[in-house]
């Protein structure tokens, strides 16, 4: 009987370990989500993946009466990679080439930020500005609001 209890304990332990292992990728995937954020005072409430993509390709997107200004976050390589894969559906090189072409035609190119405090400062100064960052970074950063989870 005692052997039976021990056996059940083993089974439970194995199942528990399996659950932990299975849960790990879920947590990892959660971390890989990208959040689109604005400053806490912004009137922009929500944005779709399509609108984000268009805005970062240079199209004029007006939300809640405000023409949004996309800021390109290059402060975190992982965030950039996830953004390119999940939202822009292209490589960073292909995106850069599109931006060069767009700029050459007189279009507006999103400003690039390689320093997080500078990016957040620009975001706080302009209620029309949006940017993206890893979801967990967005949750942990005060003074900003998530308007899209992609």
């Amino acid at each position: 009987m005692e052997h039976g209890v021990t056996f059940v304990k083993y089974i439970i332990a194995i199942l528990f370990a399996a659950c932990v292992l299975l849960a790990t990728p879920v947590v990892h995937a959660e971390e890989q989500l990208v959040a689109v954020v604005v400053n806490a005072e912004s009137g922009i409430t929500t944005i779709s993946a399509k609108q984000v993509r268009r805005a970062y390709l240079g199209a004029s997107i007006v939300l809640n009466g405000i023409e949004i200004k996309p800021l390109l976050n290059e402060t975190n390589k992982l965030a950039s990679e996830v953004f390119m894969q999940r939202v822009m559906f292209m490589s960073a090189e292909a995106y850069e080439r599109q931006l060069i072409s767009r700029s050459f035609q007189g279009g507006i190119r999103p400003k690039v930020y390689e320093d997080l405090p500078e990016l957040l400062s620009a975001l706080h100064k302009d209620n029309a500005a949006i940017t993206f960052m890893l979801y967990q970074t967005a949750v942990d950063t005060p003074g900003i609001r998530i308007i899209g989870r992609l």
Partner: protein
Amino acid sequence: MKDFGASYAAIRTLIILFAASTGSVWAGDFLIFPSITSVHQSQQDTELAAKEFVPAADFFYTNDFNQTRFLAEFLKSSQEAELERMQVGWRIMPGKTAWIGRFHNPLSFWNTQMHHGEFLQTSLSRPTVSNYEDEHGPLPAHITGLMIESSRTAGDSEINYTADLGVGPTFDTTLQPFDLLDPHNPGNLAASVRLGYHPEAGNPNQYGVAIGYADIPFTSTVTDPVSNLPVDEVEQAVLSAFLNIESDKFHLIGELFILDNAVSGTGNSTKYTTFSAYLQGEYRLGESARTTLYGRIESTPDAAKDGYLSLLPEFSPHQGVVGIRYDLTPKQALKLEAGKTTRQDSLEFNSISAQWSMVLPL
């Protein structure tokens, strides 16, 4: 001959803007498109021989100051120095900008997409009908005046239009656009309107139509080779349609132009109507898509019967090219192109060309 003193002053100004474009109010986009092109033809005349080896650099700067936008582009090559664009824009409202200055004529889709940014275009050469004025292009590639650009999204799609009004080129042996650095020879009225439709906003796929008008005065009276009458002016009306379809692997770009050239002199006027078209297809090889194969066919079947086009001996009514582009890095490319050309002056030749091009900063 261009005023090279003014040209070098323009280069200096752009380099100063570049130097200042690190962390200041002048921080904008400063791009340089260097290229080296080598062309070899089976038949040569003086003009062709001079085109065998052409190093060039296109300097481009743009910046925003609140609602105002500034844009300048300057080309320096072994053959010419020209302030291609200098325009100041005011963003009237979201998606709508009014520009003043010298800009690309939106009549040709190719012209506005690539212009002198050799790296941006897949092919080494341009379609003849969209060639620059000084390379015997039949259409005004630049206009100096006022331009309005506007775009509006409707659901997933976007409609954009561009309308401009200004001073067009004059004509001596080729078209001569109004030169901001040497403004002694202004042309007459030129205007165009282009309407484009993107099925998906932000996506490069686009279809559209354009209409244009230019009153082009000649700097001296010449003889129309078709009618044998003396002429000193051409009134040009153009209707065009374009398409640009892109996917990961394929790219198709094409335009159709209907040209109405009314050539006139003292007491006479002759009207010529002809059409011109080109279609370029591209296919990117492999997963990395660093290698692109392309081909283009272009034709202006009745060019020899058009008195205005007959004044452009290097205009090529028939041309076909095939080529390969290899992207050495994301911002550096090598191109090799073979072509067969029949010019307006009946010169026929085969050609092989190679080009290295890139965009800076890396």
